[in-house]
């Protein structure tokens, strides 16, 4: 069992929580995510041109880069997290250029050394898999792919080929943090995806309230929350850990209760 597969084998669906590396007190915020009950952590790698992100995460990227965050800093944050939390899976999420600029092998090896469990790259579709996929797989790092409302039944096998860890269902055709998908469309999509894969399916984009999280938790294996947490970091700056922990705990409570009902 990997850390990721363990996280998705609990009696309740996994809460997957995202923050941007280098925005605010990242180490304290990571600890707050764990303390609040996050089952999987996504650590965003800031990029100058985050094409798939809405305003909240765009601004987090700018704050982080303006503070001087480097790729080396991100791996240092990950390594330190791994020492403090040996069992919580950590996934790096970001864009192709920072991940591949020194070569896919270099990136995979750094992930391995830092105790990173998986990688989500927004702009490397299966068609460009050679850029990063083989390097991650041979280093034992899960390559987590994205499926979207535009990924139809015919295309899904290509997305699943080479994917591991979990499948991230982007519930709206759009950018992060803005629109909210109708629950019925999420329910249908999860059923459709689970018919074609044994990977756990986590649903994200636009999830903000404990109620939404609970609704998704009734059908999916995981719930991803990003922009809402990043907004708390923006609001509270260096003192965001408390509010982040409390908010994450409210989501977690809703997710655990959802399956009991």
């Amino acid at each position, binding site marked *: 069992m990997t850390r990721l597969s363990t996280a998705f084998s609990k009696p309740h669906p996994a809460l997957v929580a995202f923050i941007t590396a280098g925005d605010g007190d990242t180490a304290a915020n990571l600890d707050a995510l764990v303390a609040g009950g996050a089952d999987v952590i996504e650590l965003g790698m800031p990029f100058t041109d985050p094409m798939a992100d809405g305003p909240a995460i765009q601004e987090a990227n700018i704050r982080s880069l303006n503070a001087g965050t480097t790729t080396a800093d991100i791996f240092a944050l990950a390594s330190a997290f791994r020492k403090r939390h040996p069992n919580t899976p950590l996934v790096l999420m970001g864009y192709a250029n920072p991940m591949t600029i020194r070569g896919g092998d270099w990136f995979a090896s750094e992930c391995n050394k830092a105790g990173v469990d998986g990688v989500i790259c927004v702009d490397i579709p299966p068609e460009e898999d050679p850029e990063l996929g083989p390097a991650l797989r041979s280093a034992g790092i899960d390559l987590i792919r994205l499926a*979207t409302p535009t990924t139809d039944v015919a295309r899904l096998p290509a997305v699943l080929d080479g994917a591991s860890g979990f499948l991230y269902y982007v519930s709206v055709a759009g950018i992060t943090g803005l629109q909210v998908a109708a629950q019925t469309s999420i329910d249908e999509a999860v059923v459709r995806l689970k018919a074609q894969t044994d990977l756990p399916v986590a649903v994200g984009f636009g999830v903000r309230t404990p109620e939404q999280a609970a609704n998704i938790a009734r059908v999916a294996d995981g719930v991803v929350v990003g922009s809402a947490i990043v907004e708390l970091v923006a609001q509270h700056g260096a003192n965001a850990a408390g509010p982040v922990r409390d908010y994450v705990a409210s989501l977690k409570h809703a997710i655990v209760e959802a399956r009991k009902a």
Partner: protein
Amino acid sequence: MTTTEPTPNSFRNQPDERGHFGQFGGRYVAETLMPLVLDLEREYRAAQQDPAFAAQFDDLLEHYVGRPSPLYYAERLTEEVRKTAPDGKGAQIWFKRDELNHTGAHKINNCVGQILLAIRMGKTRIIAETGAGQHGVATATVCARFGLPCFIYMGAKDIERQQPNVFRMRLLGAEIIPVTSGAGTLKDAMNEGLRDWVANVHDTFYIIGTAAGPHPYPELVRDFQSVIGKEARTQMLSRINRLPDLLVAAIGGGSNAIGLFHPFLDDKDVEMLGIEAAGHGLQKEHAASLAGGRPGILHGNKTYLLQDADGQIAEAHSISAGLDYPGIGPEHSWLKEIGRVRYDSVTDTEALAAFQLLCRTEGIIPALEPAHAIAAVEREAKKMDRDQIILANLCGRGDKDIFTVAEALGTTI
């Protein structure tokens, strides 16, 4: 047709079936866009096989755009350059006059092609990004012509420095959406264009303005712009029964350059020179991705980019808003690597001097983009014999730039 069909060893067989030009190009987009990009490729292949599509494209280029554009021997400029050239040196300078197109630049060629594709695909809403505003104006123009709603993403900084084009686009019925993220220039406008597209894939067609972006954009933009080189090749042969010795074109993303170069790539005696914007100088702020960048991934393709060691993208600078972009079309990256095309750069100051030189010697006010090419033409002509021929692409006219030029020259208008 005077253009020969590509042979197996041709330079004109790119990209491969995955949209790669050697290691460059490709389709580095979010999964939401991937099915759409594949659809676009299927529709483009179908259009390529459809004589009705070609006929409609050619008809619009002739009667709406005003093609073919003239091929012009710049006699006074040639004489002027010879005055300071070594004895016996000073090549003949010819221009492909794409600044005479409807809307004043080469951009319209591509927009006509893409809006016909959009209509074929049943899309009902058009978006585009623009830097200088030329592509925005061309897109707004074809949208008005075909009655489709048009939304143009433009950096807030560019809106400020390109007011005449902003007004033109509004007259044409387009909605301008100011982009304040990042530095508020072309790169950021492209990010916002991609964000709009990803949220509106069901009804929206993204008319990309240069030979870059995810496959098949670099290929189809090149194909639509290749009308420039095809015409020039035919015109050269019919006027003087020979091909030019050197082609010169300015490069931001590189669509006017690839449009001129591509039909000549297999003519081994024709040299080619692409000119990037060196801004304040290559050691300072500039927009020369090939000279000062290295390969990376941005906006859907792998290509040379201005970036730091971690792959964070740098801000570009050029006096020409149309060249102010930290990347370049992937086919140029490939042509550089294989050595078929030579690339060099020209500073803001050199471009401004060439801008004025052309005004005074030929009675042509060029855009600041081709002014970069003209500066390089001067340099190259002095090294070449008098019986040799340089053909440069005069890809846009300078009406839009008079405010920028006036400011640079310390004049108020």
